């Protein structure tokens, strides 16, 4: 009992002395000074750390680019890490002798077809699921994001091998749609959820049918969402490796598979391998650079909804 009383007294005296202390120096003088001092140290800290971060994320990519301009002799020579005579031989080798132009076309064509078809199937579905709150149907589609792709590859391989379709474009497009369609439904559902229904309602009052209102009012308003979904699905399809590894044939090989096949031989032609890696990454980076806003909004969709 007495202990607690003395404690209380101590506490009060502490509190009084602290208040007295602040009163002495004056809140008008300490507060602004502290505010000015702290951010400066923080600002330097922030610049240093962020510069390091950027370097860490970019340096390996620069290294890949640098190596693609080196001869294999230079790559093996540690004295020529930074100083060497750049050469385009690797690119000539990859594009000329190894027929990479056709792989570029394959990658592009598969990514383009699967994206367009997924948009055609996915956008109306996302609209219906959003407007009629078909949560259970949406769950089924979104389940595809969780399923490991290999578990579908085995049955697909069974089915398509029996139909003698393995190696054709149609199988590749279908398999890439497995990634693209759920992605598009997911992104477009959250987009339609955030789109107010008033304009559609007004259009229907003015005589448009519900489908007409969707086609003439909602779709034109959804261009940013469609761009996000389309670009992201294109990127994921372009980068996809596993499906094409199993389902593509000699004529339908996509770029990631072509790069992988580069190293299945005993010795690695590092210069050509790096230039092939540059060829597959640079187009997608350029696309991402110019559509940064959409890519970021797609990757972060659903992050703030909870």
């Amino acid at each position, binding site marked *: 009992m007495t202990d607690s009383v003395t404690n209380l007294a101590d506490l009060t005296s502490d509190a009084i002395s602290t208040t007295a202390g602040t009163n002495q120096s004056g809140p008008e003088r300490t507060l602004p000074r502290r505010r000015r001092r702290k951010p400066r140290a923080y600002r330097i800290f922030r610049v240093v750390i*962020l510069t390091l971060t*950027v370097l860490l*994320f970019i340096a390996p*990519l620069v*290294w890949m680019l640098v190596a693609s301009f080196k001869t294999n002799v230079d790559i093996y020579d*540690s004295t020529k*890490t930074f100083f060497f005579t750049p050469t385009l031989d690797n690119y000539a080798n990859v594009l000329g002798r190894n027929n990479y132009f056709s792989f570029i076309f394959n990658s592009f064509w598969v990514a383009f077809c699967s994206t367009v078809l997924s948009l*055609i*199937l996915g956008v109306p*579905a996302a609209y*219906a699921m959003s407007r*009629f709150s*078909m949560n259970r149907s949406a769950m089924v*589609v979104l389940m595809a994001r*969780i*399923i*490991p*792709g*290999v*578990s579908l*590859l*085995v*049955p*697909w391989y069974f089915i398509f*091998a*029996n139909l003698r379709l393995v190696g054709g474009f149609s199988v590749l497009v*279908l398999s890439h*749609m*497995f990634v693209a369609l*759920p992605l598009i439904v997911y992104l477009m559902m959250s987009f339609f959820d955030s789109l107010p229904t008033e304009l559609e309602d007004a259009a229907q009052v003015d*005589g*448009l*049918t519900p*489908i*007409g209102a*969707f*086609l*003439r009012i909602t779709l034109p308003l959804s261009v940013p969402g469609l761009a996000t979904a389309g670009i992201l699905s294109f990127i994921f399809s372009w*980068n996809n490796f*596993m499906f094409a*590894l*199993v389902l593509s044939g000699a004529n339908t090989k996509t770029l*990631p598979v072509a*790069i*992988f096949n580069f*190293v299945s031989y005993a010795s690695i032609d590092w210069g050509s391998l*790096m230039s*092939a*890696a540059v060829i597959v*990454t640079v187009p*997608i980076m350029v696309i*991402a*650079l110019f559509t940064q806003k959409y*890519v*970021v909004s797609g*990757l*972060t969709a659903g992050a*703030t*909804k*909870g």
Partner: protein
Amino acid sequence: MTATVTSRPPATAEPTAWTAYSRWANRHRKWLFAAPAMIFVGLLIVVPLAWTAYLSLTDAQGSVRAESEFVGMANYLQVFRDTERFWPAVWRTFTFTTGAVATEMVLGMGIALLLWRPFKGEKWVRVAILMPLVATPVAVGMMWRLIFDPNIGFANQLLSWVGLPSQPWLSGQHTALPTLIFVDVWQWTPMIVLILLAGLTSLSEEPDEAARIDGANAWQRFRFVTLPLLRSTVIVAIVLRGIDALKTFDILYATKGKGGGSFHEVETLNVYAFGLSFDYNDYGIASTVLILFFLLIIAIMWMITYRRKGDR
């Protein structure tokens, strides 16, 4: 496009077959819109998944057209007893996922907090961190393979400059998995940064400001104000990244090839199942592993979302 639209007032229109169709379509638009996607998902995802479940109960192997027999739970028993490949693969999947996701969350949170308040050159930092994210995983794997090459790689050159002994990196039996976790962290931390940054920018500044006036220091404001407010975003980030990390295949297969290296040192469940299916054509066992893998992912995701509901 205009064909489905009845733009004229119905008073002048004779009820033709077309208007009847249009009326039917509009009345059933819910299922008309959803059906194509649902049919696609049903035919290409639900049916194959069911088939995988069936295959896991058979001894299917060898040629795709070969006969197979129903063996019941024998595959499951065999897989559960398999301490040589299956359980180590489960363990590696866990190690890889928790190691990668935990590191990515900590680093991502740090970078996101530094990027939170606007500053000059912010745009360039954002562009820079977007680049690893969109890079093709196979190309990323090849790139790190060159950097981590024990003889000619830049990583060992860097170590020799600061006087450290060179490391085997990807080719070492015990260093391969940590190295690949590093590669995954390099590629996917930006994703966490972007998600957390979107969450941070959606927060209002008032709680943070109030805590500052009450005398809370930076760590206290982060721990007791920002982090609780950011809770749902953090969970979304963990779930999204966790699903992808569990299923990581491209960088593992591109750097270590079939079977996850000669000692299976980076063989996760996904790589193991892929190898069983397409390198050994052992479809029955492969399907068993896949079904177990699928159930594992669902269980983990359920646990995370269940805890989230319980905590509210």
